[in-house]
């Protein structure tokens, strides 16, 4: 177990070190082309990875523009907006926006190439699995199926996770401090999921 802990710590450290700023995409593509033509494969690969990060960052900013600026009475925390072009150190898409009002908070997160995808898709395609768990149910966000999970911590505070897979990406809406399920699904349905999916895929 100690070994596992050590390895995952290394992975998390690696992930943290990869959250860079947007790259100058045209410059990186030019650099990749020059390196490729010069036979410098490793340099070409590095430049292409940087270009991909930059493209994902640009797509991430477009998605942020599609997200609401408030969730009910919770206002967005603009300084916490995140549209890094990487997730877990891989050139993928990672977008996050947080909302807060006192004890209540919510967040929207979009991750591409998420390792959680297959598990969620399995649950969504086999609803019989959820019959044994009263804290999970299938819902719809726009035209997409999603998995809604309710959790209660030791202090009795209720939290909600709504996970919506699309393609190789995962949209997650989290919310805590609100007890009423209908209120939570109403907030989640303010997301323009069709437009978000179109931008992210």
């Amino acid at each position, binding site marked *: 177990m100690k070994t*596992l802990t050590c390895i995952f710590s*290394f992975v998390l450290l*690696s992930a943290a070190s990869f959250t860079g700023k947007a790259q100058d995409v045209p410059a990186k593509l030019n650099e990749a082309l020059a390196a490729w033509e010069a036979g410098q*494969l490793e*340099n070409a690969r590095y430049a*292409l990875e940087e270009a991909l990060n930059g*493209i994902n960052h640009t797509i991430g900013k477009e998605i942020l523009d599609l997200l609401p600026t408030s969730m009910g009475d919770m206002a967005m925390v603009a300084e916490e907006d995140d549209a890094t072009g990487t997730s877990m150190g*891989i050139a993928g898409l990672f977008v996050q926006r947080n909302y807060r009002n006192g004890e209540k908070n919510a967040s929207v997160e979009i991750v591409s*190439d998420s390792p959680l995808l297959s598990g969620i898709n399995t649950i969504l395609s086999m609803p019989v699995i959820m019959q044994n768990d009263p804290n999970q149910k299938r819902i719809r966000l726009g035209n997409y199926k999603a998995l809604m999970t309710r959790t209660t911590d030791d202090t009795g505070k209720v939290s909600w996770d709504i996970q919506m897979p699309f393609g190789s990406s995962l949209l997650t809406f989290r919310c805590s401090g609100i007890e009423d399920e209908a209120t939570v699904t109403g907030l989640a349905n303010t997301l323009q999921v069709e437009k978000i999916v179109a931008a992210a895929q």
Partner: protein
Amino acid sequence: MKNYLLITGMFLLLAGLTEQHALSQGVLRKLREKAQDEIIKKALGEEEGETPPAQDPSRPGMSNTQGGGLSTEIPDVDENIRLAQTAYGSKNYRDARYSARQALLGVEMTMGHRVLENLPQSISGLQAVTEEDQVASTGVTLTGLIIERVYRSNDQELRITLGNNSVLLSATGMYLASGNVTTTEEGQKIIQFQGHRAVIEYDDHTGYTLSVPFGQSSIMVVNGVNFASEEAMMNAAGKFDINNMKKQLGEQ
């Protein structure tokens, strides 16, 4: 501990290979099925060269009797970079991302083939089975670039698998290099291989397995089946030049 290390450090490497193994296993299965069909035909007294029925009566529609499969051409890197530039310039970011990924795939596949070209053609009397060479690039996901070659005789096999540019391989390499792995457990031990810290294991079913993390995010795994001793296995594995591989993969 050895199981945790291997499972965690290389599960995605192996996951990336699963598809490749599935492919080769599929070919082997088809060959085996064909051989079984021939035996059944002879047992039933059917003549060789008999034309198979064009349609399986249990399945409506026509059976496929020809076709060359899918092409395995390496994506054109120049063209895809230019397409990415054009798409990005016209704010078509999805196409830009697709083309950039294709270009990256092309670069990695080229790197993989160059590494294969520089591997020995035979080792300890085992000939390279070049038709089973594998290069798999997952582009920008956890597993990175995977390269594989097999050397085989009638009763021996040596399989080399290289993983490169993978986040989790990087973590495994750092862990091994950190000195935390110092104990010797049954069936495995820590050794030095061409100046790199490595792990060698022995299992009655799978034989010897040598794992050598190198550079920042690479690993070489050599599996030897039916090698008489650790010394014989290490002599064979020693024919692979890690420093040369590092250069070709752009590792430090």
